[in-house]
């Protein structure tokens, strides 16, 4: 576009959207997460961005914020091509983020957080902060977002909802023209939400554009002017919000995809867990794992369920619904104030070591940080949990030949790539093989209950299939398997039963003949807020 005169250029800027995405593509490690997404954000519009976990929303926003760069396509801001290299570039064109994890410094005051990179200075040149100007400007900003706290209040004294307002005040202080709100309501009470929405309407009046990312579809439909629906990195719908209903949004988000394959379950899924329990008659009738009224303030609320022998039980829910937190409590990593957990009828307590001895195993969400010793060898990693069982009396020297044979048995069982040697560092393996090492480590302990948190995250399709098979084999041998996953399709493919969590509570239970993506997603989303 050529704009010869200044007035023309002015008009062009006014007419043009503040931010636009055109055919944006981005891959991670060869996997395309954005496949040509286009949309625009106009001045004074609130654009809702919805989609399941992993649909590409966060990646899209990271591109806008300069945290990542696109592989193809063009971004424009204020009518000009925009290729941010870092967060400062984004700030410079008036793009501000209000993140899910707030980026405030709780040890500093509200005013200091607002002007951290831009303190007003005495006389403009001296290195000293002009306190009175700082406080006056902070007070003005706080007034705009309706916060009554003094600007010298430490942020650590504010509840989450008010911290969010501080973030918005910060965006306003930086003269933001576009504010991106990423799941702003997850930790807010309904009153705090109303306050946020009222503020958003005011900002819209002032011509500030907002991109609103949320799983709370009721809120999205209420507050947004335009919607963009993403699924698997593609824009599958969009337009004015009034053209959408809750049900239409859900079905767009879910779509239909048959590109993933799941192994056939050998034990009959129809009869499910009861059958499996009968197949192991020597065991008592007590379930493998019985959880009763488990509660921890702010984390989980009144969680109760049974996990039968031979059952694969899925836990679905959105990010931050409390699923991983529940797993950590079950494994004894985090405390809970009330409720109890029984393993085969006997109360389960103590820390992870005692729970492992009772037959519990936990494959964590983050295998690099928590699941593996990345620099250690495959053999050392596999032998880690069961190491104490390989001590030889009386001095407890390690039985290296025993360990070696156990490791090779496990490598066979999890079908680890034969190219890798026992002594090879785990760091050098692919994601799928790394996960197999974690699984092998736990399988060696012959667990009675195995908790898997996102077992196939970042793993290629072939390895996924093999991990599903391993899960089924383990269940067929009588273990109870608890699978946490953000992919509903995956849970439907491999589970006998699915529980759904939302905000720390179980909000749905589905047996395998009732599996329905939309219903499961519905239970995971808060459809609306009272």
């Amino acid at each position, binding site marked *: 576009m050529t704009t010869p005169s200044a007035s023309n250029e002015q008009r062009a800027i006014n007419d043009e959207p503040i931010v636009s995405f055109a055919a944006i593509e981005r891959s991670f490690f060869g996997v395309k997460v954005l496949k040509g997404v286009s949309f625009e954000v106009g001045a004074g519009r609130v654009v809702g961005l919805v989609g399941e976990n992993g649909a590409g929303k966060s990646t899209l926003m990271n591109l806008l914020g300069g945290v990542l760069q696109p592989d193809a396509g063009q971004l424009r801001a204020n009518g000009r091509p925009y290729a941010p290299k870092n*967060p*400062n570039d984004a*700030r410079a064109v008036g793009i501000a983020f209000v993140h899910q*994890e707030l*980026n*405030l*410094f*709780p*040890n*500093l005051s509200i005013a*200091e957080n607002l002007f*951290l*990179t831009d*303190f007003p*200075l005495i006389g403009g040149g001296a*290195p*000293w*902060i002009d*306190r009175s100007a700082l406080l006056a400007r902070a007070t003005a900003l706080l007034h705009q977002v309706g916060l009554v706290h003094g600007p010298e209040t430490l942020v*650590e004294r504010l*509840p*989450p*909802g008010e911290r969010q307002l501080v973030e918005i005040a910060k965006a306003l202080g930086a003269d933001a023209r576009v504010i991106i709100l990423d799941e702003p309501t997850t*930790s*807010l*009470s309904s009153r*705090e939400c109303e306050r946020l929405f009222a503020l958003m309407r005011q900002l819209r009046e002032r011509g500030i554009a907002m991109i609103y990312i949320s799983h709370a579809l009721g809120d999205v439909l209420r507050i947004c002017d335009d919607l963009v629906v993403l699924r698997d990195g593609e824009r599958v719908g969009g337009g004015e919000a009034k053209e959408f209903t809750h049900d239409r949004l859900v079905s767009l988000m879910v779509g239909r995809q048959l590109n993933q394959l799941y192994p056939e379950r050998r034990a009959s899924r129809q009869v499910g867990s009861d059958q499996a329990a009968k197949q192991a008659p020597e065991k008592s009738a007590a379930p493998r794992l019985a959880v009763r009224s488990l509660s*921890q*303030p*702010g*984390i*989980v*609320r009144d969680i109760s369920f049974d996990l039968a022998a031979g059952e694969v039980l899925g836990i679905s829910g959105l990010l*931050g*619904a*409390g699923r991983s*937190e529940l797993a950590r409590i079950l494994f004894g990593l985090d*405390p809970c*104030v009330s409720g109890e957990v029984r393993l085969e009828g006997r109360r389960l307590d103590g820390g992870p070591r005692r729970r492992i001895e009772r037959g519990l195993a936990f494959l964590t969400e983050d295998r690099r940080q928590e699941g593996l010793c990345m620099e250690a060898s495959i053999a050392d990693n596999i032998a880690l949990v069961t190491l104490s069982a390989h001590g030889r009396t009386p001095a407890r020297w390690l039985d290296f030949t025993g360990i070696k044979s156990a490791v090779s048995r496990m490598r066979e069982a999890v079908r680890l790539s034969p190219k890798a040697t026992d002594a090879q560092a785990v760091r050098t393996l692919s994601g799928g093989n790394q996960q197999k090492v974690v699984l092998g480590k736990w399988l060696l302990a012959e667990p009675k209950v195995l908790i898997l948190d996102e077992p196939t995250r970042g793993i290629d399709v072939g390895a996924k299939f093999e991990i599903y098979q391993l899960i089924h084999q383990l269940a067929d041998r009588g273990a109870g398997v608890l699978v946490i996953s953000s992919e509903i399709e995956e849970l439907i493919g491999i589970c006998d039963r699915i529980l759904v969590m939302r*905000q*720390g*509570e179980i909000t749905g239970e589905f047996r395998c003949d009732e599996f329905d993506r939309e219903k499961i997603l519905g239970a995971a989303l808060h459809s609306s807020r009272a």
Partner: protein
Amino acid sequence: MSAPNSKPFLRLLDFAPVALFAAVLLVFGLMSDKFLTVANLLQVLVQASSTAVVATGMTFVLLTAGVDLSVGAIMFVGAGLAGKMALGGQPLPLCLLVMLGVGLLGGAVNALLVTRLKLVAFIATLATLYIGRGTGRWITQTRAMNLPDSFLALGSAKWLGVPLPLWIAGAVILVAQLVLTHTPFGRQLYALGNNAEAAKKAGLRTTRLLASVYILSGLCAGIGGILALSQLGSVSPKFGELYEFDAITAAVLGGTSLFGGRGKVFPGTVLGAVLLKSIFNGLVIVQADPYLYPLITSAIIFLAVLIDGLRCRLIDRMERRKVFGS
């Protein structure tokens, strides 16, 4: 809230150094009537001045969740060089400038190791500690040097009835306090120490901030070296030894966290330094067994770190992410 009584307990922990200080004054005051005299307390302050200055620099480093183990070695190199020059007939001001220069240089080396080579502060400054000690021994040929009286005169000089070392320490503390509380640089240090990742995202120049704290710490070590030299009047091979631990102990006793983002020069670190020195002064006055000193030092360090650990655990618990709002 998972622990409803954590807030009052936290305040109690903040109060701990003051209570400890009061207890020290009371106990030694009761044990000897020589302890609570103006002359002795002034003596304690003079003795604490060099530690307080070094600990002030250390506070800057600790605020960023780093540590500087090389301060004592930097003091030694500076003092050794200055001593050699003074004995060679160089004028006093030039000798003092060289000590400051050595401090800045040592700090710059640390800054380089930490920010450019991305070494862990503990290891980087441990390396400079050994390099400094070695260099110092080489300069002094491991011999004690008795310096010209001009150095001692510096220590005993008074202005308006107050010993010169106190004026110098006071000035350093005042400037440090103002920098930490009243400049963007100071406030950004707190942000960096609280959450380095978020600080980077917020657009702070984290590398520059991090480099400056090590340079400042080196400079403070240089000034601290001058103050120590003005009281001792000689450079022995043990000059500046264990100053790093005194400085860390003083800062942590004064409420500065080893985990970064929390701490104050005044009263915090200064109080810690004075507390530390008054304990030693008291032990000397009541003629305690010298073999007890290390035990008592270690008990104080243990106490300081215990308090810091407890405080951080409490804060951590109060800050933990919630799945649902209350």
